[in-house]
């Protein structure tokens, strides 16, 4: 079960995934999401750096290269705080399953790799809800780099850790930055009790393991009928042609 920082249990479940870029965590979370929905569970999804309240500021900071390690860290904390206050906590209180792509451990790893104090970043995230299960997709650096860099994509300034001045070359900077992050993650695994998934295994095997681990926590999780009008259609012989996109979403 998910718990508040003061250990108050919440009725919902919070599953989160962590790992360096190219570890395949988002793919696995997406597969988990689809499985849970197909089984009728009420699922809310949230991802790192997506709060509408701070979005404009993040964009501005990145475009104009305004961030220092500390302001970068604080703004990302504001991002998570907003998502917790507006989305994650209400969903968990209602008994839903919440899936989060990256969580506080991303900050613990990245911000410390940027030079922020290890203890301080943990202090500022003290408001965060404790997840039911936290998966860490462990992958060797070379493999993740190969997955990410295979098409020589354009790397973004902060993504490549170029603000640290590790190297002039974005690819080399990215490699050095990722290796620092990886080191931090390895410390966190033990500290926070992350559930390690071997991300070098096949996607199918990883997903099977994730589902097996999630399964025991699903008892009592809120379910929702995704197509409650089905019965009417069947009984009255209707096609539902006026149901919006067949998804049954109420028009605003």
């Amino acid at each position, binding site marked *: 079960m998910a718990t508040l920082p003061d250990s108050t249990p919440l009725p919902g479940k919070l599953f989160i995934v962590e790992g360096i870029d190219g570890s395949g965590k988002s793919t696995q979370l997406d597969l988990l999401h689809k499985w849970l929905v197909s089984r009728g569970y009420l699922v809310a999804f949230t991802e790192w750096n997506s*709060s509408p*309240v701070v979005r404009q500021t993040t964009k501005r900071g990145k475009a104009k290269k305004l961030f220092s*390690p*500390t*302001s970068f860290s604080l703004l990302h904390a504001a991002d998570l705080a907003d998502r917790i206050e507006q989305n994650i906590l209400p969903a968990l209180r209602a008994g839903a399953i919440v899936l989060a792509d990256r969580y506080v451990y991303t900050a613990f790893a990245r911000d410390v790799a940027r030079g922020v104090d290890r203890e301080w970043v943990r202090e500022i995230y003290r408001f965060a809800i404790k997840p039911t299960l936290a998966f860490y997709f462990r992958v060797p650096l070379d493999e993740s780099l190969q997955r990410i860099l295979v098409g020589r994509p354009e790397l973004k300034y902060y993504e490549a850790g170029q603000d640290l001045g590790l190297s002039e070359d974005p690819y080399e900077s990215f490699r050095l930055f990722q290796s620092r992050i990886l080191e931090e993650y390895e410390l966190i695994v033990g500290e926070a009790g992350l559930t390690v998934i071997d991300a070098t295994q096949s996607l199918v095997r990883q997903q099977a393991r994730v589902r097996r681990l999630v399964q025991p926590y699903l008892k009592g999780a809120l379910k929702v009928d995704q197509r409650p009008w089905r019965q009417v259609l069947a009984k009255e012989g209707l096609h539902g042609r006026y149901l919006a996109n067949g998804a049954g979403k109420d028009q605003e």
Partner: protein
Amino acid sequence: MTRILFYGHPLPGMTETHLPGKLIVVEGTDGVGRSTQIALLREWLEANGYAATETGLTRSELAAAGIKKAKRGHTMGDLTMNLFYATDFVDRLEKQIVPALRAGFVVLTDRYIYSLIARAQVRGVDPRWIRDVLGFALVPDVVFYLKIDIQHLLPRVINSQGFDYWESGMDYLRSDDIYENYVRYQGQLISQFDTMAEEYHFHVVDANRSVPAVFSELRGSIQMIVEELQSPADAAMPAAPRRKRAPRAKGARAAAAPAAPQPAAEETAQAPAEAKTGQAA
């Protein structure tokens, strides 16, 4: 500033232990007259040859626009608001305050972490947490707390811009009566400041008095602090109108930049008033 002290974990990337400028904070609740006093002090400092600059909440290049937008929509929770303000604060600390102190400026700051702490605590945020979050703040040379009671505050606010949604605590108080909320919220903020006065060694200034009376007290106190910025050679010279200049910000800045030649800065570090700096550590 002389010695650099932080309330908590030091600011990453700060390598020096001394900064030649002076950090002067003016704190107090909404509408107490902080900005009026800062405007007067800045002009007075510049007229006397000191390079002065000012900053205040939500004036950062990074986060100011975002905070203002979010407040218009009334969409922020307490944690988010605190962290957003902390982002604004550190951006100004790193890009405005520290560079100015490094250059030997007198930095006048309209509010500091204490307002952020007061607002957070009134809203029930964990006091330990908000102090940890803002632990990278430099300990100022002096914090003037303009202390006012609600009876004196009310007419000033009504006479100026009237009651504001956030300044009346409308985001968290239950009543929809803005007057009642204003009185309650400001009362709570004032009592937070009163409590912090001891914790953070505020210099308490009775702001129930007139603008000139408050100014004269502030000026007297600041005079002693900024005198340390004079090198001994300067101090020995006839004290009368030093570098007479019209109070144009740009001109005064340039004029006082030489305030920190190396040997002088060394001496300043050992000046008697240094004791002032460390007390809140």
